[in-house]
């Protein structure tokens, strides 16, 4: 042990073992000659017969090379898998976040780097240029990942007087719009200031929060609501426990004092979230964040942190992920507005949100603070006002308003029950309704688009605007009415209410009541709840439809439902008792009807297609950009002169290049050594075949001294499976076959090298297997067709793969393409991922268990023999069909045999 330890200490690292074998202290010592010989044997391509003394050393050398090769293959496999994941994400079938992009980009980069390292071990110094290419690509990818938004100002506080709609980057959309309303439209708004995006950044940086958030985000599964739930709780706690830096605290104190001076006395405020990106057109972030009402100076700092923390509420996180926002881009500005103790308040829609044909103004109103309209917790009055002058109130829906929210004198909000008389009084006079409608139209005209406006009427009677934002109108088709079909009417179990989001959806009922129920919500269920609370928003990407007893279309939940295209029907009295847990229902929100069971006709009529939410989002754009440096493959043809490191533009190119070269290096090393154990052997199966086998490691049962290896001495799982399929079903033309049978067909086709054009190297000339116990790489030319099959099949399903590539043919281009497509169809039916470029087909299958992978190898063996020369018949649709059917039938037979065998084996084991 001492000697070994001593030796180890002289090595800087194991890698230097190769590049600097001769340490200074060892130089000029007599036995160096022997050591040099040792290294020479390891790396030279000397072909003199080996000194028996060195055979053991060579064995180690081979073992090491093979291990490096295996590591290279596993890194290659991993890179390709990650690239496939990225590609799938780009298609946008499911949401993903920045941590998905960051981990996968890092994973590809690491694995490509490992491949380069392994290749350098196999061929030191030969492919140094790859490092240059890798560095360039890595640098680009890293730069895209690291992009950050530059803030226009470092000021941490800005007064409302200084804001207009151009201030969104500093103040968030909500506060910028309020500044616009005050300073450009000259409407009345509460006095106040904004704690800016720079302040938020200062707070986050001061407490190193983003780093911790990114770390936690990476470790969770964003599809798993439980993971998200605990992530949300942890981060919110973390934010609330964090410290506000002194300079920020000082700035807030100063602004508060100014506001008190302006107001002429002590104030309380409403703290309102005003995140960057919130309230932008198309993504409302409706109700995702918290607002704190009636806050005194004593608690303003705590309340600030609570509003900031609400950036990590469950619904806000899911919303961001589903809409493709980068977490670090959503900077939370907080508006600080003098509290208005409202007599009444509510929300105006300057047009109907559910149909663009209706241009009337919709006013929702409650007694007291407008809070309950927004959070959907109390029924509200609805006034519909025509926009033609003179304005008239066209509709008045006065609801039973059981309670109202008002301010406590010192701090906080109190919920008060209303007397029966009060509860039925309209909360607006017609005059007030008309005034509100006029204001709404003024704001709409200013912005040039429909608006969603929150308002309050103060004790003085003054109307104050609390916020405004663009209103998204949904384009609906012709007016729909509930089905007149008598059968359908029989199945009607509820009707009426308000279309909060149009469309139809079906699924089992899930009765939601408590906050924790979001964890148990099953994918595709219909959410039935008493109140239209914003917290249900986190379920919308998984819900088929939503029904609530209370809540109007002006609430946050309705907003988000429309944005996500989830049908929602609000205001169905007693819904949580009418529907039973698990009962399958169909909700036709457009027609305000709910039916028992699944009614496919309704679903298809509503044409409910969920929008591709990620498309165009910041995260999607970043993935597109990064993907363009990772995924496309430019190096296709290894025979081409363009196939070189300098032409590797993407990570995929590098992996393709390295994989090709590593196989060649492995092959050449074996060939160049006159080391009988590891030279290639001719396969002997009844007769000597034109197939050569190179044992990389443990591919033979016992060492083979002579020229031939017999099939029963082959211990390679994938090769045995391939061969089994290859000989399973005889080839029966066309063209007319040699009557001597299948073996001679195989023999002939593989010896006729005169047919083989453009021979590149010895490796390509003949049919070569490179094998180990779990690995097999087959390169073959049968006639004009060049194909390579590579497989790793072991007890590690996550590493298992089969790759099959195919190119060429004797027929004209259209027939060749016909055959490639023919094979593509078959492979896809088997579960392979297939890509075609010109007449080159590349396909892969991954991650199945050993039994399944073996079956697929058998089928590839079968296909290798049976698809040859199919291009000859590709012009004739009839024969294409004939062969298509025959091949599929044969494959079924093969699959069946394996299945039978397995059953027998299991029986055997049982006995």
């Amino acid at each position, binding site marked *: 042990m001492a*000697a*070994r330890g001593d*030796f*180890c200490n002289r*090595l*800087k*690292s*194991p*890698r230097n*073992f190769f590049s600097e074998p001769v340490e200074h202290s060892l130089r000029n010592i*007599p*036995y160096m*000659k*022997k*050591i040099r010989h*040792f290294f020479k044997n390891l790396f030279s391509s000397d072909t003199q017969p080996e000194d028996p003394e060195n055979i*053991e*050393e060579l064995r*180690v050398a081979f*073992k*090491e090379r093979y*291990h490096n090769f*295996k*590591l290279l293959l*596993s890194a290659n496999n991993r890179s390709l898998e990650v690239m496939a994941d990225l590609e799938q994400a780009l298609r946008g079938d499911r949401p993903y976040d920045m*941590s998905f992009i*960051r*981990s996968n*980009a*890092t*994973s590809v*980069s*690491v694995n490509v*780097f*490992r491949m380069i*390292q392994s290749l350098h071990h196999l061929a030191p110094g030969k492919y140094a240029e790859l490092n240059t290419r890798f560095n360039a690509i*890595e640098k680009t*990818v*890293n730069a895209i*990942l690291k992009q950050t938004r530059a803030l226009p100002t470092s000021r941490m506080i800005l007064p409302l007087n200084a804001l207009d709609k151009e201030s969104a980057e500093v103040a968030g959309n909500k506060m910028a719009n309020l500044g616009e309303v005050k300073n450009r439209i000259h409407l009345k708004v509460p006095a106040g200031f904004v704690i800016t995006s720079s302040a938020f950044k200062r707070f986050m940086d001061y407490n190193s929060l983003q*780093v911790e958030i*990114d*770390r*936690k985000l*990476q*470790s*969770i*599964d964003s599809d798993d609501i439980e993971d998200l739930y605990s992530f949300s709780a942890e981060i919110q706690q973390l934010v609330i426990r964090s410290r506000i830096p002194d300079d920020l605290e000082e700035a807030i104190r100063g602004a508060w004092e100014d506001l008190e001076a302006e107001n002429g006395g002590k104030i309380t405020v409403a703290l309102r979230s005003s995140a960057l990106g919130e309230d932008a057109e198309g993504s409302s972030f409706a109700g995702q964040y918290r607002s704190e009402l009636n806050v005194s100076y004593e608690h303003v700092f705590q309340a600030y942190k609570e509003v900031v923390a609400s950036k990590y509420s469950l619904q806000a996180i899911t919303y961001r992920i589903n809409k493709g926002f980068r977490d670090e881009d959503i900077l939370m500005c907080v508006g600080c507005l003098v509290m208005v103790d409202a007599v009444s308040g509510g929300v105006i829609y300057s047009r109907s949100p559910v149909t663009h044909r209706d241009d009337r103004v919709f006013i929702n109103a409650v007694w007291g603070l407008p809070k309950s309209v927004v959070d959907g917790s109390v029924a509200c009055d609805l006034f519909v006002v025509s926009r033609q002058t003179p304005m008239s109130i066209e509709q008045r829906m006065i609801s039973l308003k059981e309670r109202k929210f008002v301010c406590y004198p010192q701090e906080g909000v109190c919920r008060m029950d209303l007397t029966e008389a009060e509860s039925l009084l309209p909360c607006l006079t017609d005059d007030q309704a008309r005034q509100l409608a006029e204001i709404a139209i003024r704001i709409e005209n200013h912005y040039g688009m429909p608006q969603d406006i929150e308002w309050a009427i103060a004790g003085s009677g003054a109307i104050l605007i609390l916020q405004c934002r663009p209103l998204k109108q949904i384009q609906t088709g012709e007016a729909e009415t509930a089905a007149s079909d008598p059968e359908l009417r029989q199945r009607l179990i509820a009707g009426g209410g308000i279309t909060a989001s149009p469309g139809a959806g079906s699924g089992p009922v899930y009765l939601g009541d408590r906050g924790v129920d979001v964890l148990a919500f099953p994918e595709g269920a219909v959410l039935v709840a008493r109140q239209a609370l914003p917290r249900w928003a986190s379920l919308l990407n998984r819900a088929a439809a939503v029904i609530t007893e209370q809540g109007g279309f002006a609430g946050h939940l309705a907003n988000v439902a429309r944005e996500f295209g989830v049908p929602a029907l609000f205001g169905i009295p007693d819904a949580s008792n009418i529907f039973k847990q698990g009962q399958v229902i169909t909700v036709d929100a457009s027609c305000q009807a709910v039916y028992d069971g699944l009614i496919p006709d309704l679903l298809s009529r509503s044409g409910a297609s969920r929008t591709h939410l990620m498309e165009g989002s910041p995260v999607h754009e970043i993935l597109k950009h990064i993907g363009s440096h990772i995924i496309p493959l430019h190096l296709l043809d290894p025979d081409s002169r363009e196939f070189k490191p300098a032409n590797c533009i993407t990570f995929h190119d590098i992996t393709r290049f390295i994989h090709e070269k590593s196989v060649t290096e492995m092959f050449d090393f074996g060939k160049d050594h006159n080391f009988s154990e590891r030279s290639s052997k001719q396969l002997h199966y009844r007769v000597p075949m034109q197939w050569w086998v190179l044992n990389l490691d443990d591919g033979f049962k016992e060492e083979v001294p002579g020229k031939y290896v017999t099939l029963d001495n082959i211990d390679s799982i994938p090769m045995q499976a391939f061969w089994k399929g290859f000989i399973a079903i005889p080839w029966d033309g066309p063209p007319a076959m040699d009557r001597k049978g299948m073996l001679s067909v195989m023999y002939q086709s593989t010896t006729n090298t005169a047919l083989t054009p453009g021979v590149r190297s010895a490796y390509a000339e003949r049919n070569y297997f490179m094998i180990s116990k779990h690995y097999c790489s087959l390169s073959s030319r049968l006639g004009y067709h060049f194909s390579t099959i590579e497989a790793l099949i072991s007890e*590690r399903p*996550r*590493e298992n793969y089969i790759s099959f590539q195919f190119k060429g043919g004797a027929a004209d281009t259209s027939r060749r393409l016909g055959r490639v497509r023919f094979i593509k169809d078959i492979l896809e039916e088997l579960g392979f991922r297939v890509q075609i470029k010109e007449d080159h087909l590349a396909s892969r299958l991954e991650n199945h268990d050993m039994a399944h992978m073996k079956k697929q190898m058998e089928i590839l063996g079968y296909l290798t023999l049976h698809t040859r020369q199919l291009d000859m018949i590709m012009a004739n649709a009839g024969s294409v069909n004939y062969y298509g059917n025959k091949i599929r039938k044969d494959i079924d037979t093969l699959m069946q045999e394996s299945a039978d065998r397995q059953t027998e084996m299991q029986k055997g084991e049982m006995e």
Partner: protein
Amino acid sequence: MEPFSVLFVDDEVDFLETLLKRMKKRQLNAFGVNSGEEALAYLKDHEVDIVVLDVRMPGMDGIETLRKIKKTNPLLEVIMLTGHACLEIAREGMEVGAFDYLMKPINIDELLYKLQDAFKKKSIQLEKIKHLEEVMISSKLPQSGD
């Protein structure tokens, strides 16, 4: 495969505990410490085959720890395992000689495969050195009489 021993270094105590339990169930000699400094101290007195190292830790960070380990124990294989995906740090780690750079959450089987691959690499290196020593010894003996 013969049994081998692994030292896990992670400042997240819960994560480390769970990982150790799961690794022990898989017949691995698994040990754990919570910082880079503790890892270096542990390695002074104990033989392990592989170290699994968190990248971001208070005190000595993962890359620094990796450098020190590679300096004193060049044959020890080190796998980086991190919750912070970062291209630059990954690259740095690989250049300093990490066997791989993996990201949390990690599939436990995948981690086990990586450990096996790393151990195999280490075994081959040792085998090579053993042969080299044999060559040295056998060539030294006859020449010692010169």
